[in-house]
């Protein structure tokens, strides 16, 4: 857990996925690492609404969702002056190189493919927040 020692455990995290099982899994893993303020959204549209009305410190989003895809949520976040600096990580089953490149172009902070492990999640969080406190 050393990689995450410097990370603020009080940060507010938004987990976006259309499958409630996956939201619960990510939420549980985050809680095991010590994060306690976790909110959920079932698609990009709901997430964007929440991001515009509440303050969050980190977004973890799926890609393929109804109403608004994760990639479109990412683009909306990056084009919003109030949200554009928000760390944004993808956790998705879309594992083609083109998907990763597209997400990188859109400004993703890191990319995890499903199925994933708790270790991968911790590692990626450590990388995203290595210069932040």
């Amino acid at each position, binding site marked *: 857990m050393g990689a995450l020692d410097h990370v603020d455990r009080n940060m507010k995290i938004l987990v976006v*996925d259309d*499958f409630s*099982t*996956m939201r*619960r*899994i990510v939420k*549980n*893993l985050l809680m*095991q690492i010590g994060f306690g303020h976790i909110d959920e959204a079932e698609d990009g549209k709901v997430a964007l609404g929440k991001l515009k009305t509440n303050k969050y410190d980190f977004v973890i989003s799926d*890609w*393929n969702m109804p109403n608004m*895809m994760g*990639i*479109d949520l990412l683009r909306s976040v990056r084009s919003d002056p109030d949200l554009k600096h928000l760390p944004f990580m993808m956790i998705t*089953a*879309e*594992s*083609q*190189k*083109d*998907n*990763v*490149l*597209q997400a*990188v172009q859109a400004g993703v902070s*890191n*990319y*995890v*493919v*499903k*199925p*994933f*492990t*708790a270790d*991968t999640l911790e590692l990626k969080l450590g*990388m995203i927040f290595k210069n932040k406190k």
Partner: protein
Amino acid sequence: MKHSNPNLSLIMALKNHIFDESLAANNEQVTEFANSLNNFLSSLIVQESRPEEEETNKTATASLCHDLYSQIGKLTRKIHSSLDGFNKDLSPGIGKLLSDDIPDTSGKIKYVINLTEESANKVINLAEKQIEDITAQQSNITEIINKLAENNPSNALMTVANDLKINLENQNILCSSVRDSAVQIITTQEFQDLSGQVLKKVTTLIEEVESNLVQIVKMFSEEGYEPVAKPKSNSEEIKLTGPGDAGCSQDEINDLLASLGF
């Protein structure tokens, strides 16, 4: 009605038959064709029954024959354009369904079967390990309790002090192990998301097959058909393959990200 002229009987029978058929056919073009044929046959009847007016009859028959010919032309073109439409609108879709989508679907279903099997085995293994660890701890605790009961209360604690210390250390290890197992059990449930995504795709394919079948039915119905445009999904610039298709592993993606400065 009986006629001495055998040609006349034959033509009249044919005419009556066509009249019945054209009444049954609820289609403008078929009715038009039947009318032309009917008129043509009527003129043949006139020709056969009044051979004395040969010249006049021949001219009338020739004009009706031309009309009939043009109706046959129209019908032929309609059949041709229907077949053409079949090739253009339907065949490529069916071809893709048969050559790509349906075999791909059986691959996806196999992926779901493997995923659920792996997940079930993983959860059972974790639960078995927990049962084993907890059973060992429990027999150790029973042993200590028995020792406490057998000895004089004043020195009982002294005799089990060391056992108790070792047991508490093991309990501590067990707590961590049970918590780890619980986290792994939770993580393993991601099969529900992954198999759900794959099954959604299979359901979409079934709907596509259904809509193609509806199109075939519409096409061969008397009303004709309107080719249904396939709905385009929104904002998909890059094809989304989802789980169950050969993509990159997390390690490969990490390498790609590292090469991009992540």
